[in-house]
């Protein structure tokens, strides 16, 4: 019997940050938050859970990636309409570039295969170790490494391709 009120209070911020990072707006993050805890409730009823925080992060990442895929290449209006003071950057131009870069990365993650996207997010956004990722996803450590390598290669390619497209557009305009 688990005290879910305590679990939600303690692990809620972590789940929220995980969801918000990938989704970039409050509405989607809230939906993802609720779906994550409901899925954890169902899962804990069927089988014992060793690491509740790891399970929640994994579920939040999976739900967020699914939601991101459903949204497709839509713009994250709410994230872009934030005040520029929040990140403490040097100015509006830098902030706009950063938001654009983040949007490109989200789109690139959206284009990754499911397992590679999960492994990448758990490793670089949730900062899990290879062993933790392998335990949470039920795969081998070698597969984690391979998936991570491929994900990074695809993301580098995607970000580079986007940059090249922009350079071509600006060159044609000039």
């Amino acid at each position, binding site marked *: *019997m*688990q*005290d*879910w*009120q*305590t679990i*939600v*209070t303690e692990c*809620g*911020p972590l789940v*929220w*940050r*995980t969801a*918000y*990072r*990938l989704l*970039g707006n*409050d509405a989607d*993050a*809230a939906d993802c*938050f*609720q779906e994550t*805890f*409901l899925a954890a*409730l*169902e899962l804990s*009823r069927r089988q014992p859970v060793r690491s509740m925080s790891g399970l929640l992060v994994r579920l939040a990442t999976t739900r967020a990636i699914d939601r991101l895929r459903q949204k497709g290449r839509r713009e994250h209006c709410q*994230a872009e309409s934030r005040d520029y003071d*929040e*990140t403490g950057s040097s100015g509006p131009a830098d902030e706009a570039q*950063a938001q654009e*870069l*983040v949007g*490109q*990365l*989200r789109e690139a993650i959206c284009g990754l295969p499911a397992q590679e996207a999960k492994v990448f997010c758990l490793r*670089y*956004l949730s900062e899990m170790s290879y062993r933790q990722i392998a335990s949470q996803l039920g795969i081998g450590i070698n597969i984690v490494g391979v998936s991570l390598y491929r994900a*990074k290669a695809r*993301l*580098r*390619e995607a*970000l*580079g391709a986007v*940059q090249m497209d922009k350079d071509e557009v600006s060159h044609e305009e000039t």
Partner: protein
Amino acid sequence: MRKREDKLSEAIARLKQEGLSQELPKEVVDETLRRMADRGSRIEDSGAGIRSIRNPKSASRNLYRLAAAAAALVLLGYTAGRLTTPKPMDLDQLRDALTPTVAAALEPALRARLAEEMRRDYQLALAGAYVRVKQELTEQYRSDLNRFAFQMLAASNAVTNELLTQLVQNIDTAQTQDLRRITRFLYEMEMNRVQDRTQFASGLQTLAYRTDAIAQVVADARPTGPDLPPVEPGKTYDERNKP
């Protein structure tokens, strides 16, 4: 490649920064807990349970109800048991009725069991006796073997000593006989030598006599002359050769 790597790292860092500045809204937590409570109550109705997010008052009320129901059930069972208990039977009658049947039913089994136990005991005893006899025979065999070995060794030593004594005696006898034979041969050789010497001496004397006789004959037949020394007759060779 380096530029792409820097861009990916920068994008990851920016993305991580995005989540850090966001606070979890209270209403999201409340809504989540409400939905989990609804889901939990549905689970409770279907047999499983999450009680920790339910209302504590309703939980204690249910507990009281459950305790009262359990107490009523216990009382009902006790009463029904008392009412439906049969009268106690007559034990003597029951014993008399059951004794022949039980005895008839148990006797073959007891006999078989007794026979089985006796057979097992005999087997155990025989096995123990066999082992004991085997050990005793083995020990006796070893002791007899050692005794015979000592006797054989002693007898062989005596025979060997006797044979050696005989050998030494034979060697002594042979040496004595050889010594006697050698002595006799030496004596014979000495006697032969003395006899040869005597014969040689007599031969020499004979030769000397004959030489003197020849010399006399030659002297008698020698021509006479003024310058020749006269031959003295009647002198022997030894006498003539004396200085």
